[in-house]
């Protein structure tokens, strides 16, 4: 090879540096992908209306493992608004109700969405009742 040793060294270094680019790309592909970002969870304002056939009635509504609404009801009808995630797959509400009366009683829960859709479920029991109620728009 002709030319000064210095020029040759510069050429070798430049060639090695050029090789680094594809090497870097190749090794980057082997890296573990970052964990998936959390899926955006749209919240909606939902209106919950409760109607019980007997009072007094103590109830608790749990959503995703946390208490959403708990109250000692002395009137047969109550209502409240909540901002919650409401995916197209729907939501589950865990409802626990106890009545002072041991006669057959019912609690009707109506969930209304901002577009006016109303979803209704009823829980029956003698003295107490509990269940997981699923509210879905397509139902």
């Amino acid at each position, binding site marked *: 090879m002709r030319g000064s040793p210095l020029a040759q060294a510069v050429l070798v270094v430049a060639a090695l540096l050029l090789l680094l680019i594809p090497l870097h790309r190749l090794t980057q592909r082997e890296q573990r*992908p970052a964990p998936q*970002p959390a899926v955006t969870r749209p919240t909606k304002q939902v209106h919950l209306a409760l109607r019980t056939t007997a009072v007094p009635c103590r109830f608790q509504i749990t959503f995703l493992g946390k208490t959403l609404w708990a109250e000692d009801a002395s009137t047969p009808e109550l209502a409240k608004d909540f901002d919650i995630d409401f995916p197209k797959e*729907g939501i589950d509400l865990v409802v626990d109700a106890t009545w002072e009366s041991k006669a057959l009683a019912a609690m009707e829960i109506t969930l209304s969405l901002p577009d006016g859709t109303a979803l209704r479920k009823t829980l029956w029991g003698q003295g107490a009742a509990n269940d997981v109620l699923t509210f879905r728009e397509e139902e």
Partner: protein
Amino acid sequence: MGLASASRAFCVCLLLFSTAKLQAQIKVASFSTVLSEIAKKVGGKDVVVTSVIKPGQDPHEYQLTPGDLSAAAASDLVLLSGKGMEGTYLRNLRDALPKQVQVLAVGDQIPSLTKGTDEGKDAEKEATQDPHWWNSISETEKATAVVRDALTRLDGQHAADYQAGATAHLSLLKELDSWVKRKVAELPRDRRILVTSHDAFQYFAKDYGFQIDSIEGLTTDQEPSVSHVTAIIAEIKKQGVKAIFLENTLNPKVSVEITRESGAKIGGSLYADGLGPGDGETYDGMLRHNVTTIVDALK
């Protein structure tokens, strides 16, 4: 009559009584860990159960042995999972058993979920049936009633005992179902995507609103194709699935590779094919372990 003669007579009577009692017990050979537990709970003291398939053993890979065949031949009732689970050895078993041994494929008595096409010959239809009915509590309730009825037909004298055993077991299953529903309710419905090693949780998914993406099919003896694994990785990324699950009886190699490519983590190991060592020694423990593992990893 001397004291020695009286003692001898007493011992003989005792021996005869014990033998008579042993002979009165119904002998059951079970080829399913879940059915073994059901038969013990429903049958109680009136039934002796031999568990041919042991907890932790993969029923898809089981091969009939001469010893197991002898145990089955010596029983009054043979319980099978059904729905094609015993496909590889069912004919040999039926052919080899004496006529007086009743063979009951419990799963065949309850409705099936199927995968793929239902068209074609009967043999092909059977291959598409999902045999993992025990992962649904409601199907296990039906199986309990089937076992109760079978024992009652064999031994009507103890019908009340079998009814009482079944009622107690059904009550525990109802309580378990209530617990499962509450635990699953902690997980948003749009995060109920279950990626498992093989397709064993369709019945569970139907009951509790999950979508299933399994790496292998209904059995554990087929390797997944590259295109199928690629599709699962794409689905995990698209849906933002946080975790995928291993099984106690399967090699985790492919699942670990999927986590590497998708960014999901391993959520834990599930009991897919029946009871197993550890938490899964009982049906109650198995379900609680599976549900807690799934919900806590996907939350």
